[in-house]
């Protein structure tokens, strides 16, 4: 009897998980369609459907060429990028929070964002175009994290602690580097460009941005998705995980590299978008629980939804768009404070 009760409970839980994940998927589709419509040049829903369908089946054109150009060159890349970046930052945040056994960790913990910022600032100083800036940002983000891993390997003691400490230190080093580039930047054009880049924005997303980051994000996201069960075991601590047959050092390294690749790819095209990677995994945990087999897909979907939503707000709120990096902080920081006080009340 007890067995059948357990089975039923198990089924109920699986069904609840499936409903939440499907619900998030539906939200994402609705938000994506909505995001195609709104902006400074609204496109009506029937035209969006028509333009989309014309890519697959021949449709008589009932929209203007200008609308098609806006759709393919502005709106579509922007919507895709918002989803990809939201998904990547949330997945990376969830993965880092698991590997470092710390719920307050975000994707920039190992200095990927500061490294990218420094790379981008140097690229702006050197007068690179947007493609060059992205490449520099991406490369510096990767190099920064590799540096952190190398330092942590050389240091003795608790691996989790040394990686995080090395990350914080090297991150502050690059942060100082960014300040220095601002100091020597030309205040008439370079300085505002650096400042604007640091705010993080989806404005000006191009089709080439999407094709550039897509392969990196797919590789990183698939890796994190595949390893989601093992992250559970890693959260129990290295010694316990090792006695259960998990190679913790190798696993942690793979997770860090995958999470860094998706973070670096995101930051390289959008600049610094904070808080998504910290807040979304928490929200997902409240919704679906801590089990990474559910948390990872939920975080990915919710992150994509969240960034689409914030981007819509940024497009609609004012005529001069508010950079999305500012909006995520406006929403993220109060929420974070709420989390801390809620934790306090529970005790």
């Amino acid at each position, binding site marked *: 009897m007890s067995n059948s009760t357990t089975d039923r409970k198990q089924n109920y839980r699986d069904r609840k998980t499936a409903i939440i994940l499907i619900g998030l998927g539906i939200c994402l589709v609705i938000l994506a369609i909505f995001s195609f419509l709104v902006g400074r040049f609204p496109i009506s829903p029937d035209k969006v459907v028509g333009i989309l369908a014309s890519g697959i089946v021949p449709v008589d054109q009932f929209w203007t060429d200008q609308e098609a150009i806006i759709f393919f060159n502005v709106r579509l890349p922007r919507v895709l990028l918002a989803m990809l970046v939201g998904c990547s930052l949330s997945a990376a945040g969830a993965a880092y929070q698991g590997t470092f056994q710390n719920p307050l960790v975000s994707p920039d913990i190992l200095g990927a964002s500061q490294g990218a910022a420094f790379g981008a600032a140097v690229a702006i100083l050197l007068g690179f175009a947007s493609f060059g800036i992205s490449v520099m940002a991406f490369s510096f983000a990767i190099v920064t994290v590799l540096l952190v891993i190398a330092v942590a390997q050389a240091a003795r003691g608790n691996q989790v602690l040394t990686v995080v400490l090395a990350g914080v230190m090297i991150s502050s080093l690059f942060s100082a580097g960014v300040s220095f580039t601002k100091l020597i930047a030309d205040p008439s054009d370079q300085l505002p460009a650096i400042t604007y880049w640091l705010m993080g924005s989806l404005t000006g997303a191009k089709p080439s941005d999407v094709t550039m980051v897509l392969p990196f994000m797919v590789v990183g996201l698939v890796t994190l998705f595949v390893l989601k069960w*093992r992250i559970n075991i890693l959260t129990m601590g290295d010694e316990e995980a090792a006695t259960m*047959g998990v190679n913790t050092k190798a696993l942690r390294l793979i997770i860090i590299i995958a999470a860094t690749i998706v973070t670096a790819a995101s930051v390289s095209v959008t600049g610094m978008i904070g808080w998504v990677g910290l807040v979304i995994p928490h929200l997902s945990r409240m919704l679906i629980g801590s089990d990474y087999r559910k948390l990872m897909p939920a975080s990915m979907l919710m992150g994509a939804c969240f960034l689409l939503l914030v981007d819509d707000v940024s497009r609609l709120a004012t005529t001069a768009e508010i950079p999305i990096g500012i909006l995520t902080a406006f929403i993220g920081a109060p929420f974070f404070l709420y989390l801390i006080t809620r934790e306090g009340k529970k005790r």
Partner: protein
Amino acid sequence: MSVKIENLSFAYGTHQVLKNISLEVGDGTLVNVLGPNGTGKSTLFRCILGLYTSYHGSIIVNGKDISKLNIRERAREMAFIPQSHKPVYDYDVVDVVLMSSGAGSGAFFSPKKAHVDRALDALERVGIGHLAHRPYTRISGGEQQLVLIARALAQNANTIIMDEPTSALDYGNTVRVLSCVRQLSTEGLTVIQSTHQPDQAFLYADKTLVLFEGEVLAYGSPKDAITAELISKIYGVEVEVNSLHDDRVRVCVPKIEIGR
């Protein structure tokens, strides 16, 4: 022979922790390891579990030299039960037990129904099947320790190592956990556990290993190994060993309290 250790030495840098330890533990034996703090109990366990690899000497578990096994193979021979602790994230009890399936068979591994069934069976075996879908952080410390024991059982290893499993538990939970361990050992599992209580070693052990300053001071049946002189020596407290119930049970009492 479940565990066979020969001439095991281990040092942290220049600090020699284990000195030339040799011992054999037969199948289905419950061994208590007794010794003051910092005497090398945990280090010995970490060497046996393969967490520390820079030791000298040999450690054979179930006939296999553990230095020649990889992490996954070691997990098949031995399970580790740590002190119960609060994990950072809240998992359901059954999911904690499920972690015993570890890294599984390949890169894409995720636990299947067979693993879930094994986890639920393990929970039934230690008598807490009803807790399967409760959050792990919201059950008592004794229940958490039983969950960790169930996790070790679900790992299907013959040898279980426990590091002070009851040090944070109240009296009732201590008795429940140790009786459960005793029962498992009579069912054929080899259990090596450390403890701070000589009385526990009398009650819940086939053999007692006394470690002192990195060396084996005594190893044998509890009644032979634990003497008043030995307890006085390792803990620096004068005790008297008394027998109860026609010597079926023995207890240690500090002498200083008897004279009052």
